[in-house]
């Protein structure tokens, strides 16, 4: 236990901790400012309506608001009835649902059939998809989920939308920084010649190896949870926390999503997915540094691996994404495609969503890396290399 605490301290000393927290704070405030800036309405003189007024107006006007025929008819009569922001949000959804047809041109029947039309678009997309080649059963299952959405609350949930918007980038950055902090655990710094001394001590072999690995995961978890908490609070505070139980379909980016979940559930999914990415990166960093035994050599391999993922992400190629990139940090933290991509994996006769399967594979890879780490360390100890 004591060794583990010492190793944790070696990873994150006071200066590193302060630097890390400062980064999290600065980045969160910057993201929050950028989010809020999108809610400022501008005219030629500058800001005409501030984000604060805009949001409070939207909050008040959206109480009990549902996207249905009545709402559309009201908007046809008075476009500003629900305030600027709510109208914008509703118009975006209508525009996606009716293939850019303006609200004024919608017939009664079309308005009545809002959710059927949504389901028809989803059905058409599923049938036309040539890459996955959905079976009838899979389409039926998807359509059940599509059709189960029959009401859509448009109550204020701007904070959750803003959170979902940029969280992926933040998680990716945090994961990289934490992976860098893990590097010195097994990566040796040639300038500090303590390795031989430490290894000759009483608990300097198996116990030390285990303590270092536990310390890596423990510190990574604590840092991840803390940084996400800071990010969550700073991004959400100006918006308020209301809207947690609203469906994610009220956001235009996830309007066609077949996951009938709330914003809070979406955040929990994203948070958990980010944590899985973190576990993967920590495991990868551990095995690389254990094998290479050198901080910079390990860091260069990790950096080039990440650059490779970024390069691969530039060109969309279904087989590469399907069989490789979907389980890797860059696409794992690019959360949107999990909600609207409807990608499937067919394993042992079961159709499993990409949302779930990517987590399973990523965790399996992490376990393989971890077992390999223990094996290599064991082999090194047996050979007397450490």
């Amino acid at each position, binding site marked *: 236990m004591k060794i583990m605490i010492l190793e944790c301290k070696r990873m994150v000393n006071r200066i590193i901790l302060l630097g890390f927290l400062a980064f999290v704070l600065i980045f969160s405030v910057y993201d929050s400012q950028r989010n809020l800036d999108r809610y400022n309405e501008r005219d030629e003189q500058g800001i005409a309506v501030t984000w604060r007024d805009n949001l409070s107006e939207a909050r008040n006007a959206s109480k009990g608001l549902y996207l249905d025929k009545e709402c559309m008819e009201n908007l046809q009569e008075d476009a500003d009835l629900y305030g600027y922001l709510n109208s914008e949000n509703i118009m975006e959804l209508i525009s996606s649902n009716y293939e850019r047809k303006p609200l004024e041109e919608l017939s009664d029947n079309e308005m009545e059939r809002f959710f059927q039309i949504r389901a028809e678009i989803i059905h058409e997309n599923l049938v036309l998809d040539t890459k996955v080649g959905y079976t009838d059963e899979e389409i039926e299952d998807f359509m059940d989920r599509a059709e189960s959405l029959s009401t859509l609350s448009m109550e204020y949930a701007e904070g959750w939308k803003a959170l979902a918007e940029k969280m992926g980038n933040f998680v990716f950055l945090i994961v990289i920084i934490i992976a860098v902090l893990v590097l010195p655990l097994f990566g040796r710094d040639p300038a500090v010649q303590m390795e031989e001394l430490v290894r000759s001590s009483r608990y300097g072999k198996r116990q030390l190896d285990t303590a270092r690995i536990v310390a890596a995961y423990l510190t990574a978890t604590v840092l991840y949870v803390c940084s996400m908490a800071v990010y969550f609070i700073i991004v959400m505070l100006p918006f308020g926390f209301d809207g947690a139980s609203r469906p994610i379909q009220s956001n235009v980016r996830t309007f066609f999503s077949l996951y009938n979940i709330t914003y809070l559930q979406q955040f929990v999914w994203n948070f958990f997915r980010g944590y899985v990415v973190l576990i993967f990166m920590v495991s990868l960093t551990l095995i690389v540094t254990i094998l290479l035994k*050198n901080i910079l050599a390990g*860091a260069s*391999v990790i950096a*080039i691996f990440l650059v490779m993922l970024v390069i691969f992400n530039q060109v969309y*190629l279904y087989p590469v994404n399907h069989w490789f990139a979907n389980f890797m940090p860059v696409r794992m933290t690019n959360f949107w495609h999990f909600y609207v991509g409807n990608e499937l994996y067919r394993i042992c006769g079961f159709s499993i969503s990409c949302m779930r399967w990517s987590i399973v594979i990523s965790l399996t890879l992490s376990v393989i890396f971890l077992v390999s780490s223990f094996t290599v360390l064991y082999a090194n100890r047996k050979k007397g290399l450490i």
Partner: protein
Amino acid sequence: MKKQIWMEYRKLWNKIAGVAVIAMCVVAVLHLFVYLNLQYRSIDSRGEIVEGLASYRALREASKELEGVMDGEYIQNLITSYNSSFDKAYMAEHKGFLGTGGMTKYMVPNYFINYAYFGPYMSNGNNKVGLDYDFLKSEERFYATYKETVKEHLEDDNMYTNMYSDEQLLVLNRKVDNLKTPFSVGYYQGLANLRSWYIMDYSLVFIVLAFTVAGLFSKDNTGGITELTLSSRYGRKMNLDARWIAGNLFAVSVYLIYLGIQLIVNGLIGTLAGWNISAQMLWFHSLYNMTIGDGLLIMFVGGLLGALVVGNLVMLFSIKLKNVKLAAVLAIIAVLIIMRTKNMYGVIELVSPMHFESDNMFQKFMFIGNVAVPYFVVVFVLTVLYVAILYIGTRLSYKKYHIN
């Protein structure tokens, strides 16, 4: 001195360099093999669809009959051949063929001809390979149309970028008039791949340099080597100069390894055939009478200059911080910032080393009076300037480089 440079150079090839360079090579090779294998398919000379890596050689074989000089006779033969071809019938049936990685031997000549019609709106796709144009009736009319299109394209681009004044556009138009026609045609898909992948993966060189050169002037070596070196006769100014030269040689070496990998793998997959055909077949609105090989060579030299700039930047960090880890962290942050400029346009295209390897080198111009200077000349001058400033910055620390 030579021996010192050699020894310092050898010292740079340590474990970190070995691992990083191998990782770079693996990623570059993987990226080429996986993407070229999965992305493309072609119609071969017997009218069959060949998929994967073999499609390039099949395309080359099929393209042999269309090699030549695009004069009046060639164009008429091309029209006859295309209209009765399997390729045309196949593409009429498969509308998305060319837009989804399909290739036909008619791509090179037909796309070029279609550019004369579509100009700035030219893209890949089945709807842009037709040859049903009036201007194809004579060679003169075709090239006159082509040159007018290039001029329109330049003007169109300028509307968005405002890079050139009206007078400067006239200077560029004169360059268009001076283009020597007819152009030569042939297969160049291997070189087109080389160009794309060379640009896409270029940032790997910067990453490798950030990790490896960071240790050049570091003083946290083990075994007191730093102290020993600094106490020896040539261990100060001469040794530090030797290190600087070795650092530059190392940057060149890493870059050449990267380029070598790109050349070898692309040579194996799509071959390097087509280096002597007219540049306009690949860069439709190029204003120079040169070949594709010349264009790529300019890009390769530009890439080398970019690597030297980044190498020198990392060396500056190395001598200022004297700590390999800190220098590497700072170098990586700097490299990431430089990499972010890849999607930026405007002046940044000229000043950021991330753009030194692009075809802007001979596609864009800077005007001095009424003389159009291509970017590669400016980039060359800029590189000398960058390296000189960074070298002076490095040199300023020579006196402070002493035993602690």
